């Protein structure tokens, strides 16, 4: 039972057992490391698909209850198996490539977006010792990998050879680039307090301090939450998917697997943004009584719920309002937050 709490000990035990096994049969440790990496990738891929299915169901339920409806009820108890049925249906659909599309760019775009979403899971700290790679540039890596998705969006929009897709890709790209600045600046306050970019160090700093960083960085948390909503293109910032203006957005032309990869990436990104916010501002896995993994998932899915709450509460804003709000309010506020943090730290 105690291994559920001391997961670093558990990981060490597993690794040492496997290393001993390798030594016995004279297998080089390099192969063990490679095998562990492959298994970790498999676990993450499994987690992503299961969690995305859960989040899609949750979104439908949350939106339904907010609008005084029931939502999916037929497949499974309270419609819990609805997304599994939907996923199987999507897999059997025909893959269509428009005749005038740029075939390679069109086909590779969902791959780029999905890969950049998956790559972010490498530095997510689930529990002590349970992290694929505790990079000492952890947070910077997350921000850098996140910025690659814009290329995938532009590839999808341009490759489809559809003007609505292209317009949506431009909107989406401009929005992500603008709000990336605010998101990065809001993370800087936490980095200043911790003195490290490693995700594990950030959690440990909050554990040592006794309370999460949201207490000392409330404005940073709010800025990150707003900028994060904009970065994952969710309402009220879902201009890239404004159905009434742009049909469906940059993925209008996609069907079957291509479409489901965009869908997976979108929800995986929402999970990542929530996980970053939970790690940076809410103390990550740190918490009393419950095991660390449970705390981490509780905080992360709590924030996922907040994002859904936003979506079904606020109406969509206009493009000019979006840009003005980002550049003239959020970014200056983030700078003021940084300045105040610096002054307080000096005193």
């Amino acid at each position: 039972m105690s291994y559920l709490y001391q997961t670093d000990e558990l990981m060490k035990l597993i690794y040492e057992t496997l290393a001993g096994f390798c030594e016995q049969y004279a297998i080089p440790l390099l192969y063990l490391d490679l095998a562990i990496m492959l298994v970790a990738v498999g676990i993450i891929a499994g987690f992503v698909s299961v969690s995305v299915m859960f989040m899609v169901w949750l979104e439908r339920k949350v939106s339904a209850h907010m609008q005084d409806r029931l939502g999916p009820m037929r497949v499974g108890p309270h419609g819990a198996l609805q997304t599994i049925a939907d996923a199987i249906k999507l897999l059997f659909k025909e893959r269509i490539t428009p005749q005038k599309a740029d075939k390679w760019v069109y086909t590779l775009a969902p791959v780029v977006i999905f890969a950049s979403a998956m790559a972010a899971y490498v530095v997510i700290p689930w529990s002590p010792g349970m992290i694929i790679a505790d990079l000492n540039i952890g947070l910077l890596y997350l921000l850098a990998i996140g910025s690659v998705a814009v290329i995938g969006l532009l590839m999808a929009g341009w490759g489809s050879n559809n003007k609505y897709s292209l317009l949506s890709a431009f909107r989406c790209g401009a929005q992500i680039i603008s709000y990336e600045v605010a998101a990065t600046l809001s993370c800087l306050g936490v980095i200043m307090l911790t003195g490290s970019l490693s995700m594990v160090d950030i959690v440990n700093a909050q554990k040592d301090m006794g309370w999460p960083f949201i207490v000392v960085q409330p404005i940073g948390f709010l800025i990150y939450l707003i900028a994060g909503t904009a970065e994952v293109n969710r309402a009220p910032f879902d201009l890239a998917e404004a159905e009434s203006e742009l049909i469906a957005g940059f993925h209008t032309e996609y069907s079957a697997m291509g479409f489901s990869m965009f869908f997976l990436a979108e929800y995986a990104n929402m999970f990542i943004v929530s996980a970053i916010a939970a790690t940076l501002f809410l103390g990550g896995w740190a918490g009393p009584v419950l095991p660390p993994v449970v705390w981490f998932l509780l905080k992360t899915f709590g924030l996922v719920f907040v994002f859904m709450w936003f979506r079904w509460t606020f109406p969509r804003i206009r493009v000019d309002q979006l840009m003005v709000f980002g550049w003239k309010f959020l970014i200056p506020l983030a700078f003021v937050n940084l300045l105040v943090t610096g002054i307080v730290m000096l005193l």
Partner: protein
Amino acid sequence: MIELTAQTIPFYILAVIAVISALAVVSLKNLVHSVLFLALFFFCMAGFYILLKAEFLAAVQIFVYVGGITVLFLFLIMLTFKVADKRLRQTNEQWLIAFVMVILFGWLLVTGLSETNWEIAEWSGPEKTIPVIGKLLLTTYIFPFEVVSVVLLAALIGAIVIARK
């Protein structure tokens, strides 16, 4: 001659991808394709930085070059529709002179590289590079750092002034 170890195998894989994508950047006839291969090339550069244990540089390489500059290129090319659609010619009337210059420059590079005695340093660098880079930027190299910031600011204001006309 070629040694295959855990360090060299990734290097050769990255090197092959980097050379192929660099060739694709200059030889493809569609500008958007060129820029996408440029992004792939920048990714390979980040990989080389990681092999050299400069993780900070690698992350910044992806952040600035892949996420920033390539995206800017894509925006510019896609917004000028005639450029994105055309199959552009790769040569003009000066190709002969350029060819001679390239051969000369290539010869210079090959002789320079083959005649240099490459020494391998014993010192492998600090464990965490970011604190060291940060300290150096704000102490020893504060002046060039600030000059670069002012130059970038001037470029930014210049771009806004031109765009407003």
